[in-house]
């Protein structure tokens, strides 16, 4: 079963995602896509580590190329988060590439092994600001990625200040 969790910044998405895996038996893998560069990224990573501590997750740091991860059968995966993954794939080389071409096969690869797959993404398109062409391209790519991922997910939940709003599927929390 695949569940996509979207929402704005700091709205409780991770907390909800981890809660969904609370009662899972078997191996729980946390795929971290944020690159540990800069003070604030390190602080965010540390904060998430603390929240996760004692919940039995094995952490896999993978910034690009999800399809390359070797996975055990019937595991439970939390992928966090799509916004970092998208930027990492898109701006990996000098030439900006379409991140969906690498990420979508990556997600299908995770789905093949995971009994439960929770994907945390981000809504980045609601601030009404026009940015540089690169950033606008990123917002567009995130929109497409989220739409495509929602299409192959059983559940889609939007988190609003910690309140889960079901957009697709049945209540699963």
């Amino acid at each position: 079963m695949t569940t996509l969790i979207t929402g704005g910044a700091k709205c409780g998405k991770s907390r909800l995602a981890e809660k969904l895996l609370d009662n899972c038996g078997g191996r729980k893998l946390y795929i971290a896509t944020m690159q540990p560069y800069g003070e604030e990224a390190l602080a965010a990573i540390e904060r998430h580590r603390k929240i996760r501590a004692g919940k039995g997750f094995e952490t896999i740091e993978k910034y690009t190329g999800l399809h390359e991860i070797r996975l055990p059968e019937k595991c439970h995966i939390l992928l966090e988060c799509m916004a970092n993954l998208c930027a990492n794939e898109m701006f990996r080389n000098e030439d900006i590439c379409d991140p969906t071409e690498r990420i979508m096969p990556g997600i299908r690869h995770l789905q093949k092994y995971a009994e439960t797959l929770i994907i945390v993404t981000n809504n980045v398109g609601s601030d009404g600001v026009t940015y540089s062409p690169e950033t606008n391209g990123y917002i567009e790519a995130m929109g497409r990625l989220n739409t495509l991922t929602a299409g192959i997910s059983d559940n889609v939940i939007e988190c609003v200040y910690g309140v889960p709003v079901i957009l697709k599927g049945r209540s699963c929390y």
Partner: protein
Amino acid sequence: MIMITGGAFQGKRDFVKKQFALSDSDIADGGNCELSELTNARCICNYELAVKRMLADYIDPLGFTAGLNCEIVIMNEIGGGIIPIEKSEREWREMTGRAGCILADRAEKVYRVCCGIATMIKGEQA
């Protein structure tokens, strides 16, 4: 407590005035009223702007939010965009998100207003 959220200019305040029979004088504006007035105000609007002012005054917005005694808090959703370049804007966005989670957790009811239409996303219909 009841929390009302949604994007900017979606009709949140009009919804509150109609639904809960309030007038403008019952509503303290988080953007410009004294922060000390907020704690016991009947209704606060623009609470996200109050968070911004707390940060400027070195007041902990999370502790402040946990101590609010209001009936109704109106607060914009501001997190749905690109990470701001300015550090203070990033901090505001982060603290607003966390303060909003505290409010939503404390609230018996949370409404989200979009295009003037309010949807209850937490709580039981009366």
